[in-house]
């Protein structure tokens, strides 16, 4: 999956919508109408713009964001040192696992960083074993020991 092109031509209403919708989507009967009222847009326009932003992958999703640990599940960051000539092959093997929620290439000897998300903590060890068996590489797991801050909000400008 390549990053989308640089110029996605977001207009002022798209930017205002993205900034307004990063949290606090109302739990009222007609939430899109409520958001529209605060932005001066119609309910239909909010829904159409959201649909277009999701289709263009400006937004990767829209809805509740769950904290899987609270459900008894686990999120673990892990990394691989992948030989460059095997990078695409290994990326395909790793991405094929449903337990892999995100995967990024990073510029470092540890060049593949992914997040394993499983419903039980035992699922993490099983996923790591599967990746090691499939790739022949050592998985370095970096479970979080403490969270100091998490608040992903980006200013759309």
């Amino acid at each position, binding site marked *: 999956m390549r990053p989308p092109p640089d110029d996605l031509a977001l207009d002022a209403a798209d930017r205002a919508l993205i900034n307004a919708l990063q949290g606090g989507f109302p739990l009222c009967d007609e939430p899109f109408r409520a958001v529209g009222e605060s932005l001066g847009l119609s309910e239909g326009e909010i829904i159409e713009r959201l649909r277009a932003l999701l289709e263009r992958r*400006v937004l990767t999703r829209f809805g509740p964001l769950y904290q899987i640990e609270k459900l008894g599940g686990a999120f673990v960051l892990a990394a691989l040192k992948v030989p460059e000539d095997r990078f695409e092959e290994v990326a395909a093997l790793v991405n094929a696992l449903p337990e892999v929620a995100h995967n990024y290439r990073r510029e470092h000897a540890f060049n*593949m960083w992914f997040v394993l998300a499983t419903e039980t903590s035992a699922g993490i060890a099983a996923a790591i074993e599967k990746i090691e068996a499939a790739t022949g590489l050592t998985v370095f797991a*970096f*479970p979080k020991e403490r969270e100091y801050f998490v608040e992903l909000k980006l200013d759309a400008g």
Partner: protein
Amino acid sequence: MPDEIDRRLIVATQAGLPLVPRPWQALADRLGIPAAEVQARLAAMLASGVVRRIGAVPNHYALGYRFNGMTVWDVDDARVDALGMAVGALPFVSHCYRRPRRLPEWPYNLFAMVHARSREAALEQVERIAAVLGSDCRGRDVLFSSRILKKTGLRLTDG
């Protein structure tokens, strides 16, 4: 703890909300419960932290944040909690965690994510973190992401 209905609600919403004027009603129809119950269950899961937030997840790249750096630091274990709180309080740090070292390959125990629209701006953020850590920093690195290989988020199975 979430019960079976919460779990079905999670499975029904993990890929996203229905983009219709009454999304809670649409979910309620699918689950066979009243819309007010969908709203109440989500409110309860927000309060307990099972739901972090309800909203949009932007693609960093698409918003021009093309320089996403995972900054990593080797700091004294006795000081890491105080320093982690201070680094997490910086306005441009989106995530900050303590994680285990993997010696000898990986000496870093403090991770902080930064996001910027230019490499220079990202490196300036790295320096601001370094300033907070001061002489407690024994080693550091920054790993920029150069490709999103996968981004799907949580997937519970249905059942």
